């Protein structure tokens, strides 16, 4: 009888191993769900600073995973500020000075609008499989959803985060939580994604809470007000000339 129980347990464990996808498979499914040829996103960034909470509204046109054009709509001080990302280059345009400045070097580590996100975060390749090797290390529940826990280790030099832990919804393949670590193993940032909605056949978390754990404050909420996938994008947006228009 005891042998039969042992055999049954072995079979069950074997079945679980067979069901567990590889890390690369999980990332591929995440990419498939999250990324499109183009996206137009209107979003709010609610920045909970040490002394005040500010809300910054922006509209972003994204082409593939490499190019993006963003215009800030509010508050008044930021209105008209634009950002352009073309591949590995990033520029910002300030209407007050009528200057277009390339953001590079140490400036990339600066906070975006005082939020918990840095320009470096904006510059990283969103397709994690390109930069990290992935391994599924277990299952956990996040916000009542069963998730694969995926450990990511950098496979290219110079990344802002050497390792990451990702909690991916096992059914919808949407990341629900992410912890980002430095080379030293120190936790740098946490991201909690929630309010997952279905948009054009894709599962989209419309609320994210970013926390730079090295900063004081209650983090930065990123709220997607509207998102459109595979929309036609005006080509002129993705040039430096568009910044001053």
């Amino acid at each position, binding site marked *: 009888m005891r042998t039969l129980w042992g055999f049954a347990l072995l079979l069950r464990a074997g079945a679980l191993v067979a069901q567990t996808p590889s890390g690369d498979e999980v990332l591929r499914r995440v990419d498939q769900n999250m990324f499109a040829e183009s996206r137009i996103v209107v979003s709010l960034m609610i920045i909970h600073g040490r002394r005040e909470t500010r809300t910054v509204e922006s509209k972003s046109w994204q082409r593939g995973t490499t190019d993006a054009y963003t215009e800030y709509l509010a508050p008044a*001080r930021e209105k008209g500020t634009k950002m352009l990302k073309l591949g590995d280059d990033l520029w910002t345009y300030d209407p007050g*000075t*009528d200057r277009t400045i390339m953001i590079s070097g140490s400036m990339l580590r600066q906070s975006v609008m005082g939020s918990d996100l840095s320009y470096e975060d904006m510059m990283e390749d969103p397709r994690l499989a390109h930069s990290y090797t992935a391994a599924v290390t277990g299952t956990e529940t996040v916000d009542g959803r069963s998730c694969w826990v995926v450990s990511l280790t950098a496979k290219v030099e110079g990344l802002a985060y050497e390792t990451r832990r990702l909690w991916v919804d096992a059914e919808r393949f949407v990341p629900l939580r992410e912890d980002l670590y430095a080379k030293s193993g120190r936790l740098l940032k946490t991201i909690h994604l929630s309010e997952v909605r279905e948009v054009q056949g894709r599962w989209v978390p419309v609320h994210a809470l970013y926390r730079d754990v090295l900063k004081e404050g209650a983090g930065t909420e990123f709220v997607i007000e509207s998102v459109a996938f595979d929309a036609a994008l005006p080509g002129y947006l993705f040039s430096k000339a568009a910044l001053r228009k």
Partner: protein
Amino acid sequence: MIRFLLKGLLRDRSRSLFPVLIVAAGVMLTVFLFAWMRGVEASVLQSTAHFTSGYLRVTTRAYAAEADQQPNDLALLGADSLLAALRQGESDLLWTPRITFGGLLDVPDAHGETRAQAPVAGLGVDLLSPGSPEPAMLRLAAALVRGRLPARRGEILISDELARRLDVRPGQVATLIGSTMSGAMALANFTVVGTVRFGVGPMDHGAMIADVADVQSALDMENGAAAILGFFRDDLYHERQADSAAARFNAAHRSADPYAPVMETLREASGLSDLLDYITAVLDALIGFFVLAMSIVLWNAGLMGSLRRYGEIGVRLAVGEDQGHIYRAMLVESVAIGLVGSLLGTAIGLGAAWFLQIHGINVRSLLRDNTMMMEDVLRARVTLGAALIGFVPGLLATVLGAGISGIGIYRRQTSQLFKELEA
């Protein structure tokens, strides 16, 4: 009696010359080193006060805790009303708002693209208000190398070294890239109207000086200031007065609110406390060492003199002179030697210090990576304290030396004197 002893000293130079020279040399060294160290201390204090912390500094408690990071997100808000209250309540001092900030100065080419860029250490100071103490405090007119001082909003001064590095001439526009109070990127255009050289390494490397109102606008700090600085009207640091002003202010503003104002003295705000204690300890040790070393040398000189004057003292004892009288006479002699040596040493020491007060020593090459606010040309400082500091130890060392070496007089046995004299 004293005249008799002085005549003896003058006529028998072997009794006076060596001790006088020893005392003079020791006193000269003490006076000179004291004046030099006080000069260096004053330079560090003044430069730190002018460019960093004032003699008193009011910030928020949270800012004070992280002041070395220039956390402008923790700056004082409602600075105008606090400034008015300080000017009324502590009217012995001059009060002025300051914003220190970091950033990049970006120089555009003809097409508006970045031609050159360099990090700057920014200082927002009250340049334009009538009667502002800042231009005089920072000695801007004397520091001006090219161009002119700012006369209206939007005009800045930058260090001459930075201007040369960026190839910027007065009249050109440059863009400050910094951070607003809330941490967002801030861009603001300024016209460089002049270049300055302060002779203070960290400022000369990459300083940018703008009117505080321009900096408030650029960094989104409406009616804000990183700090309100207080300066004594004679531009000297009066520690006791500073301590009592800070105690008064902090008692009146006791609060657990991290954004409540707190007043700190230069010693607390600048992190110079250890340095100031170190200078005081070195000067104390110097004077103590001088007294000890001089006493030993003069004791030795006294012993040698006693040996040489063995016969003379023997005769004086033999003819019935009291041992105490001879001992006192030697002490009076030592006072005379001490006075002459100390006067001579003080005069030479003060002369050398005065020379270095006027001319100074340029240590710029040694301070290449220095981050401390101190002038490149270090100068001695001749003060009343420097004039007095060597005098007492000079006199004390001579009397101590004579006192110790003279003890042997009491050991001479009168019964043995004639045998000794015969021998």
